[in-house]
C-alpha cells in the first residue's frame, strides 16, 4: 500500500466516524425541536441531553481531525477547496458555532427559549446539508480555474439535480441514523414511552433513506458517468449495504435486539460510504486533484502516519473510557448518576 492510499483511508475512516456520531447529534436536535412543537418534549429531551452533552466536543474533534488531516496529507485540497468554498464554508462554521454553544448554554435557560430551540433543530439539518456540498463539488463540474484563481459556479451548483439529491440524502440519513441510535439508547435506559416514540421515528425515516440513496445513484450517472461506472463495478459492496439495511429495519420492526439493529445501521453506512469512496478514486477533486498528484511529500506522509499510529494508542483507551462511563454504564444511562 502506498502512502497516499493509507492517508486517504485514515481520513475516510475518520469522516465515517464523524458521519455516525454527528448524525446522532444532528438528528437529535431536530427531534428535540419536533418533540417540543408536538408537546412531547418531556418524553425524550431528558434522554437526548444525558447522552449528548458529555460527547459533543468529541464529535466536533472528529470533524477538526478530518479537515486538518486532509490539509496535511493533501495540501492541494486546501488550495482548491479553500478558494472555492469560502461562502458555504463560512456558513457551515456559523451553523456549527450556534450549535456548539447550544450545549454549553442549554442548562442555563436556552432550553426554554423558543428561538434557540428552533436554531438547534434547524442547524441539525442545515449543517449536514451544507457540509455535503463539499462532496458534491468533488465530483467535478462545479468549479472553474481562471486567471483570477478558482471560483465556485453557484448557478450550476444550485440548479443541479445531483447536488439536491445529495442534500436530500444527507438530511434523511441523519434522521434515520439518529432515530435508530435513540431507539437503542431509550431501550437501555428502560424508558418505555421514549422508546415507543423514537422507534416510530426510526421506522418512518427508513424508507426515505433507501429511496434517496437510489435517486442519488441515478443523479450521479448524469453528473459523473465515470464515477457511476466504477460504482457499478463495486455493486456487491452496495448490495451488502442494502442487506444490512434490511436487517436493521427488520429488527426494529419486530422490536428486539436494538443494539444489533444499530450495529447493522453502522455496517450499512460503512459499506455504502467506502463503496462511494473507493469508486471516487483516483480523483479527490475532479479534475484538479488526484490521489497521487495531490499527496504531500513522502517525509511528511510518513511522519503523519507515525503520528497517527502513536495518537491511536492514546485515543482508543480514552474513548473506551468515555463510552464505558456514558454509553454503557447502565446506571448513568438510566439517569441514576
Amino acid at each position, binding site marked *: 500500500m502506498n502512502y497516499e492510499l493509507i492517508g486517504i483511508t485514515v481520513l475516510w475512516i475518520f469522516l465515517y466516524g464523524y458521519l455516525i456520531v454527528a448524525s446522532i447529534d444532528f438528528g437529535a436536535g431536530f427531534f428535540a425541536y419536533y418533540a417540543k412543537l408536538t408537546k412531547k418534549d418531556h418524553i425524550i429531551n431528558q434522554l437526548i441531553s444525558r447522552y449528548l452533552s458529555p460527547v459533543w466536543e468529541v464529535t466536533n*474533534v472528529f470533524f477538526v481531525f478530518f479537515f486538518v488531516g486532509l490539509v496535511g496529507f493533501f495540501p492541494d485540497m486546501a488550495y482548491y477547496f479553500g478558494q472555492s468554498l469560502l461562502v458555504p464554508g463560512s456558513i457551515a*462554521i456559523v451553523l456549527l458555532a450556534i450549535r456548539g454553544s447550544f450545549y454549553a448554554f442549554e442548562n442555563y435557560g436556552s432550553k426554554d427559549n423558543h428561538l434557540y430551540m428552533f436554531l438547534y433543530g434547524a442547524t441539525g439539518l442545515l449543517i449536514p446539508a451544507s457540509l455535503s456540498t463539499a462532496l458534491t463539488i468533488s465530483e467535478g463540474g462545479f468549479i472553474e480555474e481562471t486567471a483570477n484563481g478558482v471560483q465556485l459556479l453557484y448557478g450550476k451548483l444550485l440548479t443541479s439535480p445531483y447536488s439536491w439529491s445529495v442534500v436530500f440524502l444527507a438530511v434523511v440519513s441523519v434522521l434515520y441514523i439518529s432515530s435508530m441510535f435513540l431507539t437503542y439508547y431509550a431501550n437501555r435506559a428502560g424508558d418505555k414511552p421514549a422508546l415507543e416514540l423514537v422507534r416510530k421515528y426510526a421506522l418512518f425515516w427508513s424508507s426515505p433513506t433507501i429511496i434517496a440513496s437510489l435517486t442519488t445513484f441515478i443523479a450521479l450517472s448524469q453528473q459523473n458517468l465515470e464515477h457511476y461506472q466504477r460504482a457499478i463495478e463495486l455493486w456487491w459492496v452496495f448490495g451488502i449495504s442494502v442487506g444490512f439495511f434490511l436487517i436493521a429495519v427488520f429488527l426494529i420492526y419486530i422490536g428486539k435486539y436494538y443494539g444489533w439493529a444499530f450495529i447493522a445501521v453502522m455496517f450499512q453506512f460503512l459499506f455504502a460510504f467506502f463503496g462511494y469512496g473507493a469508486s471516487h478514486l483516483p480523483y479527490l477533486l475532479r479534475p484538479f486533484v488526484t490521489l497521487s498528484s495531490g499527496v504531500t511529500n513522502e517525509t511528511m506522509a510518513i511522519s503523519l502516519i507515525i503520528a497517527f499510529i502513536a495518537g491511536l494508542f492514546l485515543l482508543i483507551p480514552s474513548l473506551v473510557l468515555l463510552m464505558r*462511563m456514558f454509553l454503557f454504564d447502565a446506571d448513568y444511562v438510566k439517569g441514576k448518576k
Partner: protein
Amino acid sequence: MFEYDSVVMSRMLTSLTLAFHIIFATIGVGVPVMISIAEFIGIKKKDPHYTLLARRWTRGFTITVAVGVVTGTAIGLQLSLLWPSFMQIAGNVISLPLFLETFAFFFEAIFLGVYLYTWDRFKNPIFHWLLSLPVIIGSTMSAFFITTVNAFMNTPQGFDLEGRVITSIEPLAAMFNPATPTKVFHVISSSYMTSAAILATITAFIILMKKGSKYHKKALKLTVVATFIFSIMTALAGDLSAKFLAEHQPEKLAAGEWHFETEEGADLILFGTINENNEVENAIRIPKALSFLAHGDFNAEVTGLEETPEEERPPLWIHYMFDLMVGIGFFTLGITFLYLVFWKVKKWNEYNPLLLWGIASIGPLSMLAIEFGWIFAEVGRQPWILRGYMKVSEGATTSPHVDWMFVLFIALYTVLAIGCITVLRKMFKNNPAELELESRYPQVAATKEDD
C-alpha cells in the same frame, strides 16, 4: 472604507477571529491548572472551601470552553479558506504539529467530558483529581503545537524552496525552529498568568462589593499568589523572547523599540512619539537598557532598523503594543507583590480597598496584554506571512466575498459574546457561593467564624 481588496479583508477577518479565539484559548489553557490546584489543596487540607472553588470554576469553564472550541474550529477552517496558497505551501512542511494538535484536542475533550460529569462518582476524591491532569496536558499541548506553527511562520526552516517546489523537508526541524522555545514558554506562561489573574479579579471584585466570606478570602490568597508566580515566569519568558528576537528577527525588535541605527549601549525607549524626520520625542529613555534586554549586556551592539530594506520593515506603531504589554506585566507583578507584603506584615491590612481595586484590574489588563502581545508579534512579522519566503499578499484568497463574510463573523462573535456573558452571570448570580456551601457542606457553613 477603503478600496476593495481581498488581502486586506482576509487580514481583517483573520485578526478578528484570532483576537476573539485567543481570549477563550488563553482561559482554556490556564484555568484547568487553577482548578486542579484548588481541588488538590481541597483534598490535602480536607477543606471543602477549596473543593467548592474548583467546582464553581469548572462550571464557568464549561461555558468558555465551548466558545473556545467553536471559534477554534472557525479559525482552523478559515486558515484554508482565507489563505489557500499559504496553506498549500505551508501544509507541506508544517502540517505535523497541526495534526498532532488535533490529538491533543481529542485527549482534552474526552477527559474534560469525563471530569465534568464525575464529581461524585469516586469514593476516593483523589481519582477525580487525577482526571484533571490529562485535561491540563491536553490543553497545554495544544498551545504548544499551535505555537510551533506560529513560530515557524516567523523563522521558517526545515525545507528548501526552488521556485514553487519544496524539497528536502524535515518536519521535526520545521517544528523545532529557533522561535519555538521562547515562544512556547512565553505563550504558556502568559496563559497561566492571565487565567489566574482573571480569577483573582472576580474574587477581589466580590470582596469589594459584598465583603466576601472566608471562602472568598481563601480564594483571593490562592489566585493572587498564583498570579504572582506566573507573572514572574511570564516576565522571564518575555525577556528570553526579546533575546531571541535580537538574534533571529532583529527587524521586529528594532521596529518595536524604535531603534533605527545599529549601536552599542542602546537606550530603551518607553512610549513617546515620532516626528516626520523619524526622531523620537516625548519618550522616557533608559540608558543602555535595550542592549541589556537584547543581549544581557549593557554595552552589547543592537541591530537597528536601518539594516532592513525599507519595503520589508514592519510598521512602527507596534512600539506601543510592546510597551503596553510590558507595562501591564510589571504592573501585575507589582500589585500582586504588594498584596503579599501586606499579607505578611501583620500590621497592614491586605483587604485595603485600594489594593483590592488594583487586584480587580489585573485580569482584564492581562487579557489586554495577551492581545497587545499578539498584535506586536504578528504585525511585527509584516510584510511576511512566512518570513523570507512568502508575503502576506501572496498567500490570500482571491475570492471576492470576504467582506460579507467579515460582517457575518462580526455578527456571530457578537452573539457568542453576549450569550457567554449572560449565561455566566445567570449561573453565578442565581447560585452564590454561600448558598451552595450550605447545601453541599452544611457542617462547614454552620461554623461561621471569621479570622
